[in-house]
């Protein structure tokens, strides 16, 4: 260690003045940065909102639309065990005539409504049968003097339950028949009815079974035709979901009138619609109409201006 270093260290070490310390520390306190907030305070609101959202979503999903079980009105599985087992099957639509006569397609709103109506009807029938059974039991018990069995016989017998199930099947078949172009699947599983209606608007598949020709419903006639303005006319003759039947009719009309030029259009409402060709004047349309009366043996039911919307 050199002499200079020794001399330097012999000199007294000075302490910083108290005024300097106070000034610096006061400045440090005055300009101290704000304490940093922990990240928990930043994420806490977002996390709490997310938790509340998940909880609410789970509650909503848990209390969502209840399945169509109908267990309240159905018999327990053990009680229907003796009834003939019914496997899930597709009830085919066979009797189309009775379907059209019983309920038209426009009166059926939706498969869910159909199911509700069936369940309500089943409940009503079951209640009626139960009341009848109770009344019969009560009369028998009073006659024999056995009062103990009177109050404890609300459960219908197996025959009654089997009758209810059979009635439900019959009812479902009837309701399904109300849809000319719908395929309804009805299944029974463990005493519960589950209706899964699948409406398939397929005109081609039903064309062969529906042979009826429905005349166009617009009220028209010879007088109405004459009252129309002399413009471009198109005759709407008939409508049906069976195109082959319309084609047969079209052939007959064509043979009777050289002016008849059949046109087929597909309608979402009426299935297939048979149209004639267009005419430049009212007189030609009237002439064809008169010939159609003779050829088809029926009234021409609709005449519309070609400038207006047909469908």
């Amino acid at each position, binding site marked *: 260690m050199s002499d200079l270093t020794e001399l330097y260290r012999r000199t007294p070490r*000075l302490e910083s*003045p108290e005024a300097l*310390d106070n000034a*610096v*520390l006061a400045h440090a306190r005055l300009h101290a940065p704000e304490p940093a907030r922990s990240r928990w305070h930043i994420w806490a609101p977002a996390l709490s909102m997310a938790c509340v959202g998940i909880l609410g979503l789970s509650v909503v999903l848990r209390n969502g639309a209840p399945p169509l079980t109908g267990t309240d009105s159905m018999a327990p599985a053990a009680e229907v065990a003796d009834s003939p087992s019914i496997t899930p099957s597709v009830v085919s639509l066979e009797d189309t005539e009775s379907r059209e006569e019983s309920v038209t397609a426009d009166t059926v709103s939706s498969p869910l409504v159909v199911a509700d109506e069936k369940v309500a009807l089943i409940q009503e029938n079951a209640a009626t049968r139960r009341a009848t059974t109770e009344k019969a039991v009560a009369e028998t018990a009073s006659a024999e003097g056995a009062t103990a069995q009177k109050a404890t016989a609300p459960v219908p017998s197996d025959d009654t339950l089997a009758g209810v199930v059979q009635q439900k099947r019959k009812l479902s078949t009837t309701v399904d028949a109300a849809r000319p172009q719908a395929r309804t699947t009805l299944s029974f599983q463990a005493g519960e009815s589950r209706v899964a209606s699948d409406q398939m608007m397929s005109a081609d598949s039903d064309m062969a079974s529906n042979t009826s020709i429905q005349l166009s419903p617009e009220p028209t006639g010879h007088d109405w035709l004459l009252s129309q303005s002399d413009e471009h006319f198109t005759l709407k003759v008939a409508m049906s979901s069976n195109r082959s039947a319309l084609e047969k009719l079209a052939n007959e009309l064509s043979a009777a009138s050289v002016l008849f030029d059949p046109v087929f259009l597909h309608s979402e409402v009426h299935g297939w619609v048979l149209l004639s060709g267009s005419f430049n004047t009212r007189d030609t349309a009237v002439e064809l109409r008169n010939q159609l009366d003779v050829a088809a043996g029926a009234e021409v039911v609709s005449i519309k201006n070609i400038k207006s919307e047909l469908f």
Partner: protein
Amino acid sequence: MGTFEKFARSDVSLLRGYAKGDVTAFEKLYARHKDALYNYLFRSLGHYAAAEEIAQEVWMVVIDQTKTYQKRDATFKTWLYTVGRNKLIDHQRKRANQAHADIDDVSIADTSMSSDDRILTQQLIAALDQLPAEQRDTFVLQQEGFSQREICKITGVGTETVKSRLRYARATLKQRLGES
């Protein structure tokens, strides 16, 4: 290094604590370096008031740049003395521009010193004051415990330059103090 000093918080840790709002961390940091910095400034200037003024300015810079301080290659102590040296150079330029700065104005008025210490300190300060500023800074920094490498970082010159300045400073001081 004692057992407790070994586990003491580092300068950077204290500075980051102050950056997060911990005032006590800055108080610890200030207590650790305040006297050494003040002695360095005083022995470089030879004036209490000027050393106090510059020391305050240096610590203000530290406080203001706490948030922007990033750990550099140098330690906090090296950065602190770099700031102090820059302030010292600024002060010396101002004094050089003044009309007259008499060495007699250097006040050694600490009454707590003994007469021998006061004379010794006065001789050392007088000898240092006659050195060129670069040599004086280099010599004082070495006596305050900085290595040559640290002195290079503080003064911004190369190692050979530091060695040269130290050699000339020692020779001059020996000559002046031997005469006195």
